[in-house]
């Protein structure tokens, strides 16, 4: 195959250039800065692995990492269950299915910052009012404790992203040939059995895509975190991305923040790549 001739590279050039300018070069420069005492203006000396060793002892970073990991696990599981559920719902022969699809997808079109403020109002004022008038104390004071802050973030993320995941599942669900289901039906398979043995294996590729998307998105969340809880109360709902921004810009330790960012990058890359590898092996080809 002679597809890698000159025109191949020629067509690739703009993309390669763009990638190099906005991804590869900053990555290399950033990694370099993480080994220095860069303060945003000048580099005076090379400090080796000092920043990286400090990160191991940095409680705020480790707390943020734990919080983010827990959040991502819960969010990924719930997102995929709810996304798949919605997809199955709207692929039934319902009159309103197109309307429902639009509705479910809509939250995805709203920016994270605004969503955060909307949900802040819902959690604090709406929940508070309902709790007060019905006398349910657990609905009051949301976001003022670590637990409610955590679930607030989970609910917000699910509300925002499940519509997107639903679209991915719909695409795969509609690709399942009808004959398979019909044949199984004739053979007397129950709907649960049909889901378990036909639908589930055939939408497996969708898991790869959507788990990859949800996991890396959940890990990288920043704007929702910022507008909903701002890391509070007492910094207990602060995620890694926010910790990095605060280290670099509020505390003015740019090189140290850069070192955190490099570690964050490695963690996300490892998770994402291993997950793609693992899921690829399980996929069923039609």
């Amino acid at each position, binding site marked *: 195959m002679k597809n*890698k001739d*000159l025109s191949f*590279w*020629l067509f*690739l*050039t*703009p993309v*390669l*250039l763009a990638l190099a300018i906005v991804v590869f070069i900053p990555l290399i420069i950033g990694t370099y800065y993480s080994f220095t005492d860069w*303060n*945003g*203006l000048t580099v005076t000396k090379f400090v080796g692995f000092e920043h990286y060793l400090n990160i191991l002892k940095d409680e705020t970073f480790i707390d943020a990492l734990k919080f983010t990991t827990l959040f991502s696990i819960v969010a990924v599981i719930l997102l995929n269950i709810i996304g798949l559920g919605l997809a199955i719902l709207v692929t039934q022969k319902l009159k309103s299915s197109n309307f429902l699809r639009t509705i479910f997808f809509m939250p995805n079109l709203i920016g994270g910052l605004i969503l955060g403020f909307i949900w802040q109002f819902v959690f*604090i004022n709406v929940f508070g009012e309902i709790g007060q008038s019905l006398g349910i104390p657990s609905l009051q*004071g*949301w*976001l*003022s*404790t670590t637990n409610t802050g955590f679930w607030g973030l989970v609910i917000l993320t699910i509300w925002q992203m499940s519509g997107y995941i639903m679209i991915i599942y719909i695409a795969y669900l509609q690709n399942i040939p009808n004959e398979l289901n019909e044949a199984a039906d004739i053979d007397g398979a129950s709907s649960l059995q049909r889901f378990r043995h036909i639908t589930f294996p055939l939408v497996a590729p969708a898991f790869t895509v959507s788990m990859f998307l949800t996991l890396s998105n959940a890990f990288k969340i920043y704007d929702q975190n910022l507008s909903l809880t*701002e890391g*509070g*109360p*007492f*910094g207990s709902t602060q995620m890694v991305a926010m910790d990095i921004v*605060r280290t670099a*810009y*509020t*505390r*003015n*330790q740019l090189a140290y923040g850069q070192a955190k960012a490099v570690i964050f990058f490695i963690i996300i890359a490892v998770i994402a790549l291993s997950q793609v590898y693992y899921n690829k092996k399980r996929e069923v080809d039609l």
Partner: protein
Amino acid sequence: MYFFKLICERLQKIGGKKMSKHLKGLIVLLLAVLVLAACGGDGSSESNANGDDTSGEEQITINVFQGKVEIKDQFEAMVEVYEEENPNVNIEFVAVGGGSDYIGSLKTRFSSGDEPEIFSIAGPTEAEQFKDYLADLSDTESAQLAFEGTLDSVRDGDAVLGLPYNLEGYGYIYNKEIFENAGVDASSIMTYEDLENAFSTIDSQKDDLGIVAVNALGAKERWIIGAHLANAYLAPEFNNNILEAYNADTVTFERGDELKRMLDLQVEYSVQPTLNIDYSQQVEQYFSLGQVAVIQQGNWIYPSVEQMDPDLAQNLGILPIPVEGLEGKLPVGVPNYWGVNKNKDEATVQAAKDFLDWMNTSEVGKETVTSEFNFIPAYEGYSADMINDPISKEIFRYSEAGETIGWVFNGFPSNSWGDLLGEFMQEYIADGLEWEDVLTNATEKWEEGRN
């Protein structure tokens, strides 16, 4: 693009089949970079040509780079007057802020070589970072006129590295109408006990006064408690001198008990849960709508209150935070400083200094600064009558009389120790931490930040 292809084919012929695929890719890449670079070059030469049309006299351009977006139009109007008086000076104003990161943008400007002539810095941390770029301003008229103590945080030996923008002050801002209705005389409140009595008097008549609570403590904002409230009790420890705080290796919390007492008082009489109340809820939802009688805030809330309720805005007063032995003193400080870039030629540096002096001392400048920017002047030569809003007026009177407590929180370690202290205080409010632990943890963090 055809020309491009020709070169490539020519190169291919030269290289023949021996040329590896990678090499080919590399050449294509290089050529593309060259083409792009050529385009870029065109643009820059054009802009050079534009800047060249001077009319005889040497033209000086001063770029002003700073973080207050809200004064942009007013500043430009003032600049026009100055440019008419000084035709050889051209002032360009850039405002970065309102959500975008000012200091990050400033660093970008410096590292890209496009350095502004005048820029703003906040406090000693930034003054030290930009020390290599900041000219000595001690010979300016403004520096002579600046209120005592306002230059502390930008002093470097005998040199003065910045000139104050303005003053800002905070304390307990109260709704005069509610205080009157409750029969509380604000002017008699001096000590902590007075304040406590006032709070409980108002609290007992909550329903009659139509308020939900006496005050709203914005404990969600770490700076309200960790920087501002704590500052009132930390400043005396550092003799009200920000540089002393900036150079201190540790903090002893001499007045830690007083801080606790005041925090407890505010939490007790606040709308609950305090950890949910952010700045906008505190100022807009609770205070401006008349749901609480008093909040711990500063003169910067005036525009928001005015927008929501102009009558209330004219009916505001401010009380100092009572600190034992220092009753009746208001925490007043300088949020930002003007700095002049010293890496420019002498004439430009002088022109920049002249402009800053003109802004702070000429009639037009004074008028704009007070009534258009709504600044509280940090210089002598102004009178309280020039200031529009009632809170700023009172703050100016306090500073004129020297009845102030300094702002030391810009001298906290790595700029954000106040946030950390605020987090520990939040944990204390949520009953997750004993008060002694708040102080020990905070002291530990201070010492960490100084190493």
